[in-house]
């Protein structure tokens, strides 16, 4: 039986541009189920990142409702949405956004510190996460010492260490070469299968698309196509 994890209802997002408004998302109605490995595809400015940011409760819709893991994010306080992000959502950014003064270990550990987990629990979880991405030997290095591919793998470990139900990845392969992009997406696919984590990507990278089970194509802020590519998951 499928478990609904995200639902958007008549989602509209407008941004002020001078005296006018730009509609980034227009009447989006989508449902995403647990364990999906879905890509939001579209050209620049189609609203992919905006949709991810709203689902991740970093932004709020202008109109409509967004239900994430049973919670209407339009009604959450700052504190509640922070709690939702901390416990249930992992973010992976295009430029990794690793904290420069922390070691790799500390970067991954951060989310667990926010959850007040004990030091021993944190250590085990961080080393497990680094093992998933094959970087356990670099735990004490700083992000500046990493290559692009390694940096993004640390970002994946950071997103996964808290075992979130949902991972939102914004153009995760945009700054990587083909080899690294394939390696990254394979890692995420493995984690998706192993841990049943729902992955939602925004991307226009062909390499990523080939791994996806579902494609949601956005054009000018509207859903142009919603295509299932692998029936076993949906």
């Amino acid at each position: 039986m499928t478990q609904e994890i995200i639902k958007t209802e008549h989602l509209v997002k407008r941004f002020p541009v001078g005296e006018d408004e730009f509609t980034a998302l227009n009447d989006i109605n989508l449902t995403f189920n647990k364990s999906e490995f879905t890509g939001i595809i579209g050209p620049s400015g189609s609203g992919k990142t905006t949709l991810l940011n709203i689902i991740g409760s970093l932004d709020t819709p202008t109109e409509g409702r967004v239900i994430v893991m049973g919670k209407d994010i339009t009604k959450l306080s700052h504190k509640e949405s922070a709690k939702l992000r901390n416990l249930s959502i992992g973010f992976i950014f295009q430029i990794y956004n690793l904290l420069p003064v922390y070691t790799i270990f500390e970067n991954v550990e951060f989310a667990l510190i926010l959850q007040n987990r004990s030091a021993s629990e944190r250590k085990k979880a961080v080393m497990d996460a680094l093992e998933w991405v094959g970087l356990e030997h670099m735990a004490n290095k700083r992000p500046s010492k990493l290559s692009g591919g390694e940096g993004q793998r640390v970002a994946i470990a950071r997103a996964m260490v808290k075992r979130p139900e949902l991972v939102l990845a914004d153009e995760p392969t945009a700054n990587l070469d083909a080899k690294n992009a394939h390696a990254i997406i394979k890692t995420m696919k493995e984690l998706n299968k192993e841990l049943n984590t729902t992955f939602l990507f925004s991307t226009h990278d062909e390499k990523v698309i080939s791994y996806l089970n579902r494609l949601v194509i956005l054009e000018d802020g509207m859903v142009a196509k919603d295509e299932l590519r692998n029936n076993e998951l949906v």
Partner: protein
Amino acid sequence: MKLALQLAYKNLVGAGLRTWLNAIVLSFAFIVIILYNGLIDGWNQQAINDGINWEWGYGHLLNENYDPFDPFTIQDGYGEFKDFNNDNLTPVLIRQGNLYPHRRMMPIYIKGIDVNQAILKLPTELLKHSDASYPVIIGKQMSESAKVKVGDKILLRWRDKNETYDATTVTVVGIFDTNVPFIDRGQIWMSIKKLREMTLLKHKTTYFIANEKFSLSETVGWEFQSQQYLMREQLKLINTKKISGSILYIILMTLGLLAIFDTQALSIFRRQKEIGTFIALGMTRWQVVRMFTAEGAMYSVLATLLGSLYGFPLLWYLSITGIGFEISGSEFGMIMAETIFPVFSLELIIGTVIIVIFSATIVSFLPARKIAKMNPIDALKGKVS
């Protein structure tokens, strides 16, 4: 708060040289503030001790007609105290006269004091044991201005109670060194017994100096001025110095705090993506504000630790050796030693630490408040201006 401190500590350690530069500037301000206040407190303590030991004793019992600030009252400002044999009171008689050192006329006060007194540090035993007919002791400043030395004989002229002039040669039997100008400049000290004989003022006294055992009973015709009352001018002077000193440490603190403010404001601008990431990872905006505030406050903690490393040995050394000044403040009418030994009380150190930490926290909070209004999306994109 524990989390904010934990993260702030990691950020500070990670920031390396930038952290240490700020901490050094602040620690310098911190040490100078303690040193300056310690110097003022040391001066204050020395001045009060000198005042008590050389001039005030434990209070003065003044004849009601005598006003120490009005020289015209000296002429008639004396009387006979019914309990003049009280062991707890040392009598002093003041008269006016002229001294003629090196044929130069010098208007002076002639002060007669009980040669057996033990309340003041005045070396009155020299008067007691001298073979001279009219032995006197004078202060160092008086000896310099009159250009006289021990053993010199000088002509002294005065008027007795009947307004009749008389004169004799007095012998300088001792020169004392004091930081209290009010018992030194323009005066000579001699035996009260001799002065009473010279002026025909038998049993007359201008004021008494009380010792610690003196208790005030009926003193009709006499006014008691307590030690605290006699100190008031000195305390006023010290307070004025403290206020003017506070300007110096406001400037120093401002420099240190500006460095923190500047670093924090720049840091918030430069670390927008980091702030956005913190929020994306599940921190509330106020948690981030607290973290940045704690970071700023920690500069002051580091400054305190750093200041302790180099400052405490330095302050300890200065408190032992003292700080010398080229000229004595007593030349300007202040009780001030040529070498002041700063006093660093626990109160002063803890008070300064609290002020520095509190101020650093405030100036760190001011720029950090901006985070509370930051849009995390703009922060992640580095678009906050």
